[in-house]
């Protein structure tokens, strides 16, 4: 008979205790974009709902933006950095293969008792991180978890690509997840459809640069129609399952915060979900662009700040992106 080992003891439930965002200083309007690409403000607005986006300056690195967002989230949660047991960062624009951005950020933040790693789930990264955070808190692997979504997508934008140059933005959003006596994060509905691996990706992989040195830097490319169809129609059953698993209906929602990919996708989802008109919908994309993993916490922060969504209200989150991958859950807003 082998010796008994102990299992970790976790919290009964987990919830988001605080959220914080960082919007870089440089505002880039559609007019400015159209000085480079042959397009118009009207064309960009009708196809994406984007009026302007923020692009980071050289000083606004992914680490700097992460630290700023994390500081606000910790303050909002009333949690000290040294109480954090895990830092999870979702990003596709930390341009070092290793070490992780999370290790650097945890150290600079003073989260010296935390495990730290990055995840790669593109625009669904924040919802993936939230699911991991919930499991860590409930499973006893960490009492408090810091989840950060951060991107400098301007680094991977081809300014000559008429189909993507206007979409992407930069920024960071963070959430502190911790123990709760009542349920604060519903069951996650997540998955991956690798058959659509090519739908969104880099123009070429980094290793190509070993042989070809005259081709510049890779950029993000996307099959817009394919992604639009997938997101607008196949994400609706995912969102419905997340509501079902949380035991609520769309009527009960105080906010709908989808990944800010494209206003047209958001509108198509609202229609297909038959979302009641009284439910406020995140439309942060108009001023922020598509910031991938940062978009949901940034939109959440704005809705709370502007009083559009109530503290303690119930929100449906859904992230979807390159992979193609997705994750959705219902949360109680901090």
């Amino acid at each position: 008979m082998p010796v008994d080992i102990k299992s970790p003891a976790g919290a009964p439930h987990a919830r988001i205790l605080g959220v914080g965002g960082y919007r870089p200083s440089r505002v880039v309007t559609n007019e400015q974009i159209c000085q480079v690409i042959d397009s118009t403000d009207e064309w960009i607005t009708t196809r994406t709902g984007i009026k302007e986006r923020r692009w980071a300056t050289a000083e606004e690195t992914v680490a700097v933006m992460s630290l700023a967002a994390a500081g606000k989230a910790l303050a909002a949660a009333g949690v000290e950095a040294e109480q954090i047991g895990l830092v999870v960062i979702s990003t596709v624009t930390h341009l070092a293969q290793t070490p992780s951005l999370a290790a650097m950020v945890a150290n600079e933040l003073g989260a010296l008792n935390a495990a730290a790693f990055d995840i790669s789930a593109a625009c669904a990264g924040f919802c993936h991180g939230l699911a991991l955070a919930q499991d860590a808190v409930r499973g006893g692997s960490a009492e408090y978890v810091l989840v950060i979504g951060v991107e400098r997508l301007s680094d991977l934008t081809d300014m000559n690509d008429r189909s993507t140059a206007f979409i992407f933005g930069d920024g960071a959003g963070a959430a502190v997840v911790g123990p709760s006596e009542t349920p604060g994060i519903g069951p996650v509905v997540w998955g991956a459809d690798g058959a659509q691996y090519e739908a969104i990706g880099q123009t070429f992989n980094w290793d190509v640069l070993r042989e070809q040195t005259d081709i510049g830097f890779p950029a993000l490319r996307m099959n817009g129609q394919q992604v639009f169809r997938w997101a607008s129609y196949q994400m609706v059953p995912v969102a419905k399952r997340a509501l079902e698993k949380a035991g609520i209906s769309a009527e009960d929602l105080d906010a709908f915060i989808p990944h800010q990919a494209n206003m047209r996708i958001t509108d198509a989802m609202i229609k297909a979900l038959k979302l009641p008109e009284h439910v406020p919908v995140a439309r942060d994309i108009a001023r922020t662009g598509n910031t991938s993993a940062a978009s949901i916490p940034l939109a959440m922060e704005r809705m709370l700040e502007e009083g559009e969504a109530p503290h303690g209200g119930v929100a449906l989150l859904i992230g979807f992106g390159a992979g193609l991958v997705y994750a959705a859950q219902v949360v109680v807003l901090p």
Partner: protein
Amino acid sequence: MATQEEILQGLAEIVNEVAGIDVEDVQSDKSFTEDLDVDSLTMVEVVVAAEEKFGVKIPDEEVKNLSTVGDAVTYIQSHQD
């Protein structure tokens, strides 16, 4: 099996509902983008609604070949079960 006329009529109703274009403007020789001002994303909405209405599959790679209303009618007619 819907006839060519029925498909055209049904498609016109979809384009009207999705893009707000008058049913009588949706004629076989009309280009979706040039004449009807249907952009690439609206085209996806039209295609998805047409798939449902006519029980056909219109894959993404086929959508770009459907430049006129007539192209779409022909495709739908020849791919009905």
